[in-house]
């Protein structure tokens, strides 16, 4: 069963993503506070298969979260979301030190997001019996 960590400092977005992903048969832990999200990850690092995080957040950005979760569990997949235009040069500064497995432009439909996540983690991991 695929467990996701979702992080976005916009509470409305977190709520929508959580409900949508739950409906699409993922296990979801969602946070608006990135520091709390990281604490949750640290205490259960092996249980998460993917971290989905907004990029631009104060105190701890999605880029920093991606870097830290990979340090703790190199096997976890990371997907970053942003409402801003995604340009290759935006992230060249952090590559290859941070491995980000995918980017998502907000707003994103739940089905598109689900497909993106499945393409990264593999279909078989998700299935809830």
């Amino acid at each position, binding site marked *: 069963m695929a467990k996701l960590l979702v992080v976005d400092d916009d509470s409305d977005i977190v709520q929508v993503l959580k409900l949508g992903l739950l409906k699409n048969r993922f296990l979801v832990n969602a946070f608006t506070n990135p520091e709390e999200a990281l604490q949750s990850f640290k205490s259960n690092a092996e249980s998460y298969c993917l971290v989905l995080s907004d990029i631009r957040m104060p105190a701890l950005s999605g*880029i920093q979260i991606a870097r830290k979760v990979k340090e703790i569990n190199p096997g976890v997949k990371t997907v970053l979301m942003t*409402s801003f235009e995604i340009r290759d*040069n935006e992230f060249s500064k952090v590559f290859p030190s941070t491995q980000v497995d995918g980017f998502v432009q907000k707003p994103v439909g739940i089905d598109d997001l689900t497909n993106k996540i499945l393409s990264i983690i593999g279909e078989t991991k998700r299935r809830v019996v």
Partner: protein
Amino acid sequence: MRVNSNNNELIKKWFKEEVAEGENGIVIYPNLQTFRQIYTQYVKDQLANAGNDEEDDDNNSTRNEQLKPRIILIATFYETINSVKHNLNAVGVDVQRHIDNGSLLIVDAFNCYYPDINGMKKLVASISNRAARQGRVGVSAIVNTGFFFLFGGDGEAIELINYEASLPPKTEGGNIIGFSCYHVRNYNTLKDSQKEELVQGQKKVLEVTEIAA
């Protein structure tokens, strides 16, 4: 100066009276909602008198002798440009008209700092030149510094301090009023010594605090 976020009059007074033409100040805000209130109020106040007189340069000599309204630059980081426009429209600012007549410019701060860290300074300088050419009062630059906290690490703090140090507290004869705006949760990731370095040169600081529950 520390001010509660509900003390609008004191916040307005600080923006109006504490940071003068040619000066750079620092604003620390507690959350995005408060920051929205701050910048929308400031823009509304500054552009309140920016009527149609900007659009008819050759109308009459009396008008031409008066300085035209200042140019407001908002460099956003945690909100999209469209969100900023929406917030300003919501308080009654005619955003499109002010953009069209050159009194308002809204940009993504990321694109002004990256890949060239001096891009913001170059942009502000070019707006300053335009303001002078057009006989405007000056330029106000409200710049969110979130970019400097995006990638993390001590190197970024040093980059920020060096950048902030390159903005003099006061430039004699300058026509720019600059506000470097920090989310308090970013600001608090800095060490005490780094915070002190930020305000070197006795920059004026407004710390807006959340109202205790």
